[in-house]
């Protein structure tokens, strides 16, 4: 669906709190704009974002049209164990984008 940029540190100390940044390219069409033909452009935004750490949901977000195009999210996570951090975006057309990042905890 889209280009994704994720920033997760590859390694962390056990218990260290790391910052995760996630950016996805998406127009985030609000549904309030009129197109060249004078009709409203239908709404198409990313409505939900979730982040799982080794299968456990640790962070999620419900987004509204007031979020800027190419939505950027950043949040903190306590690095507890080596594993996978999975990211999921869902938009109004039910297109799903999945990405994962590996983290090694020492």
């Amino acid at each position: 669906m889209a280009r994704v940029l994720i920033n997760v540190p590859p390694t962390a100390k056990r218990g260290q709190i790391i910052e995760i940044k996630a950016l996805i390219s998406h127009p985030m069409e609000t549904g309030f704009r009129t197109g060249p033909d004078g009709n409203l452009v239908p709404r198409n935004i990313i409505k939900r974002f979730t982040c799982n750490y080794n299968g456990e949901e640790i962070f999620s977000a419900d987004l509204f049209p007031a979020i800027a195009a190419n939505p950027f999210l950043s949040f903190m996570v306590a690095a507890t164990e080596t594993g996978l951090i999975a990211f999921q975006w869902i938009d109004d057309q039910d297109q799903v984008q999945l990405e994962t990042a590996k983290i090694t905890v020492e």
Partner: protein
Amino acid sequence: MTQSSREAGATRRKMLAGALSVLVVRPARATPESMAAAIQAFVGGVEVRKGRVALDAPPLVENGNSVPIKVTVESPMTSQNFVRTVAIFNEKNPQPNVATFHLSPHCGRAMVSTRIRLGDSQNIVAIAQLSDGTFWSDTAELIVTLPACAET
């Protein structure tokens, strides 16, 4: 002073007192109704207190299409005491909701940042729901020189 004008004065005083009591009951500053309604739907009638939440936003925004904001909540983020939800509301965009974030004790620290759109100069409000059921809020006033909805 005639009897009727005295009565009129009394009702005026009563009305003033009524208006003042409404102002005192409101948690933050008086806001447009749609945002107040959205906040009520989120908190479900529970009192919202000021504090604990810090909403960082630039006071002067050049481009309303992408405004960086950051919400930090004072919380130990343990499994007994953590921030459950952080919601952001605005006054003058077409919709009062901006975003709702669901956090967990695994986050370690309650910090969220994102970029939002602003259709006009306005106040935005961040409200955090803690695991003990209390709600805390912070407000930021932003002045926008180029609003997000200007191009249409």
